[in-house]
C-alpha cells in the first residue's frame, strides 16, 4: 500500500516525541542515599519507550486505516445475551471448575457490575457525569457498619437503611449543584467525594479515622449464620440443613447475595427507564432546553437519577462492608470513582450488558494476572482515553431511543 510511508513517518515522529517526553521522568530515577536525594540515569528505558511507542503507533494507525464494523448489538441480541449471562451467573457456583477463589473474584466483579449499573442511571441515562460516586458507596458501607455496631441491627434491616441514607445524601448534595453545567458538575461531585473521604478520615470518634471500622457483622440467612459454631441461641446454616460445615458456604452465600442485589438493581433500572421518569432522564440528556420548554423540571428529574444512583451505591457499599468485615476510608478514594466511571464508559454509557463485560475486563483481568496489578490504573487511564478517542459512544454502544414514533400506515 502506498500509505505505508506516511504511517511509518507518523509512527517515527510519535516514537521520537515519546522518547523525549519520557527522557526526564523515565530516563532518570530519583533515589535516596545516605546524604540525600540523588539521580541515577537509566537511559535504556527511553530506548524501550521509543521502540514500544513506535510499534504501537504503527499498529494503531494501521488499525485506524481498516474500517471496523461497530459492535452495536441489536436490542434482541442484547436482551438474549443478558439472559444468558444471568443464567450463567446463577449456575456458576455449581459448575465443576468453580472453586473458592473463582467465586471470590466473581463476587468482586459483581460488586462493580452493580456499581456500574447504579452509576449508569446517572451517567448513561441522565447524562450527568458523577465523579464522586465512591462517596455514596462509602456512605452505604459506613452506615451499615455503624448501624450494625451501634444498634446491633441485622444486615437485612441495615441494607435498606444504608440505601436510604445514601439516597438522602445524594439528594442533599445534588440539590444545590444539579443546576450546574456538565463539566462543572463533574468537578463538584469529585469535590464531594473527596469531602466525604476527608470527613471519614478525620472524624475519629465516629468513624475510627484511618483505622476504619473492623469486626463488622456478617450477614445471616433467615437468622442462620455462616460460622463454624452458632452464636448463643442461633443455628448455623450447616446445622439447619444437616450438612457438614464448610467455609465455602459463606463465600457462596455472599456470591448469591450480591448476584441478587445486582439483578435487583438491573431490574429496577430497566423498569424505571420505561417510566415517564426514565424517558425524562434521556430527554434531558439529549436536550435540556427543549425539555424545559416542554414543562419538565430539570432539577427534580436530575435529582431523582442522582438519588437512585446513590441508593444503588449505598446497597453495594453495605454489601462491601459485610463481605470485607472491615472498612477504611482508603477503600473509597477518587480512584474508586474513576474505576466505576471507566466501567460505565467502556460499557457503552447506557448498555447494561456492556457494563458486565467492562467490569469483567477492568476488574476481573487484573485479579487473574496479579503481575499486572501495578499497571492496573495505567490500563484504566488508557482505556478511558482510547475509548473516548476511537469510539466516544463506548464499546458496546446501543443508545437508540427507547421510544420511536411508528409509521401509522
Amino acid at each position: 500500500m502506498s500509505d505505508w510511508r506516511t504511517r511509518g513517518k507518523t509512527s517515527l515522529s510519535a516514537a521520537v516525541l515519546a522518547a523525549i517526553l519520557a527522557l526526564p521522568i523515565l530516563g532518570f530515577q530519583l533515589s535516596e542515599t545516605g546524604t540525600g536525594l540523588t539521580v541515577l540515569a537509566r537511559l535504556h528505558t527511553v530506548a524501550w519507550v521509543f521502540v514500544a511507542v513506535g510499534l504501537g503507533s504503527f499498529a494503531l494507525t494501521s488499525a485506524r486505516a481498516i474500517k471496523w464494523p461497530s459492535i452495536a448489538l441489536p436490542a434482541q441480541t442484547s436482551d438474549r445475551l443478558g439472559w444468558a449471562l444471568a443464567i450463567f451467573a446463577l449456575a456458576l457456583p455449581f459448575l465443576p471448575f468453580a472453586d473458592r477463589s473463582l467465586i471470590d473474584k466473581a463476587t468482586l466483579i459483581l460488586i462493580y457490575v452493580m456499581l456500574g449499573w447504579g452509576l449508569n442511571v446517572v451517567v448513561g441515562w441522565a447524562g450527568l457525569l458523577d465523579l464522586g460516586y465512591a462517596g455514596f458507596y462509602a456512605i452505604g458501607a459506613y452506615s451499615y457498619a455503624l448501624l450494625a455496631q451501634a444498634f446491633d441491627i441485622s444486615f437485612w434491616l441495615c441494607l435498606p437503611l444504608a440505601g436510604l441514607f445514601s439516597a438522602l445524601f445524594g439528594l442533599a448534595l445534588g440539590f444545590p449543584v444539579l443546576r450546574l453545567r456538565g463539566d462543572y458538575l463533574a468537578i463538584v461531585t469529585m469535590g464531594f467525594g473527596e469531602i466525604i473521604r476527608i470527613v471519614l478520615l478525620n472524624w475519629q470518634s465516629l468513624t475510627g479515622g484511618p483505622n476504619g471500622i473492623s469486626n463488622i457483622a456478617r450477614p445471616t440467612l433467615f437468622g442462620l449464620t455462616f460460622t463454624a459454631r452458632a452464636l448463643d441461641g442461633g443455628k448455623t446454616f450447616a446445622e439447619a440443613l444437616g450438612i457438614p460445615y464448610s467455609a465455602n458456604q459463606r463465600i457462596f452465600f455472599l456470591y448469591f447475595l450480591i448476584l441478587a442485589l445486582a439483578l435487583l438493581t438491573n431490574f429496577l433500572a430497566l423498569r424505571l427507564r420505561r417510566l415517564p421518569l426514565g424517558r425524562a432522564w434521556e430527554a434531558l440528556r439529549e436536550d435540556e432546553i427543549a425539555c424545559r420548554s416542554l414543562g419538565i423540571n430539570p432539577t427534580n428529574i436530575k435529582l431523582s437519577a442522582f438519588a437512585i444512583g446513590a441508593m444503588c451505591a449505598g446497597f453495594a457499599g453495605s454489601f462491601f462492608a459485610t463481605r470485607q468485615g472491615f472498612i477504611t476510608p482508603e477503600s473509597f478514594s477518587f480512584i474508586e470513582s474513576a474505576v466505576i466511571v471507566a466501567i460505565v464508559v467502556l460499557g457503552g454509557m447506557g448498555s447494561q450488558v456492556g457494563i458486565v463485560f467492562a467490569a469483567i475486563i477492568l476488574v476481573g483481568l487484573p485479579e487473574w494476572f496479579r503481575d499486572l496489578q501495578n499497571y492496573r490504573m495505567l490500563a484504566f487511564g488508557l482505556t478511558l482515553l482510547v475509548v473516548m478517542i476511537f469510539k466516544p459512544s463506548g464499546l458496546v454502544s446501543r443508545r437508540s431511543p427507547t421510544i420511536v414514533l411508528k409509521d401509522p400506515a
Partner: protein
Amino acid sequence: MAYFIQQLLNGLTLGTIYALVAIGYTMVYGIIGMINFAHGEVYMIGAFIALIAFLGATVHFGFGLTGGLIAALVITALFTGLWGWSIERIAYRPLRGAPKLAPLISAIGMSIILQNFVQLSQGARVMTLPPLLQGGIEVMSDDSLTVNLSWLQMGIIGLTLVLMTGLTLIINRTAFGRAQRACAQDPKMAALLGIHVDRVISATFVIGAVLASVAGLMVTLYYGVIDFYIGFLAGMKAFTAAVLGGIGSLPGALLGGLSIGLIEALWSAYFSIEYKDVAVFSVLILVLLFRPTGILGRAEVEKI
C-alpha cells in the same frame, strides 16, 4: 498580630503558586471551553522534572545553587511545555466537536495515566529535598513571635508577578495575544480570518504547562516534599481559584489564587488543619452556587 501577618505572608506565597496553575485552567477554558482535568498532573510532572534537573545539574554537573536553579527552570519549562503540547495533541484535539463529556472523560483518563506513569517510574515514595535557600528578612517583631519573609517567599512572589506581567503583555500587546483573544471569542470566525486556530490552542496549552511547571519548581523548593499525588489536590485548588476569580480571566486567576492561598493558610492557622481541603472545596461549591461567573468573570450567554 504577628502570627496573623505571618500566616498572611504564607498564604500569599501559596496563593501565587495556585495562581500560576490556575492560569492554565483559565486560558484553556477561555479558548476551548473545557476543563483541562489533567492540568494538575502537568504541574506534578513539572515538579518532578524540576527536582530531577536540579539534582542532575548540581550533583552530576557541579553547578552551583543559582546555576542549578536556572538550569532546572529552563529544563522544566522546555520539557513540561512539550508535555502540555502532547497532551492536547493526543487527548483533546481528536475530540474537538465531540459531545461535551467526551473530552472531559479523556482528560480524566490522561490524568490517571500521568499519575501512574510517574508512580511507576519514580516510585510511590515521598521525595524530600532539604531546604536550600535559608534566611530572609525580618518584617516585624512581636514580643512572642518574629514575622519572617524568607528569600524564597520573596523569590516566588516576585517571579510570579514577573510572569503574570509578561503574560498580560503578551495577551494584550502581541499578534499572538490578539489571535488568542480572537479564538476565545469566536474560533470559527477567527479561522475564517486566517488564524491557525489549532496552533493557537496548542500554544495556549504550552503556556499553561510552562507556568504550571514553574509552580512545580517553586513548590519543590518551598515545601521540599513532592510525590506523584500532589497534582490532584493542587489541581482541584487551582481550578477552584480559576472559578473563584472568574474562569477565562487572567487577573481573575491571580485574584482567585491569592484568595484560595489565604483561605487555606488562615483556615489551617485558626480552625483545623485536617479540614483545610474541605474548606477549599466548600468555597468552590459556594462560588458555583451563588456566583458561577466568579469575581471578575462575565456571564455566559447560552444561545439556542
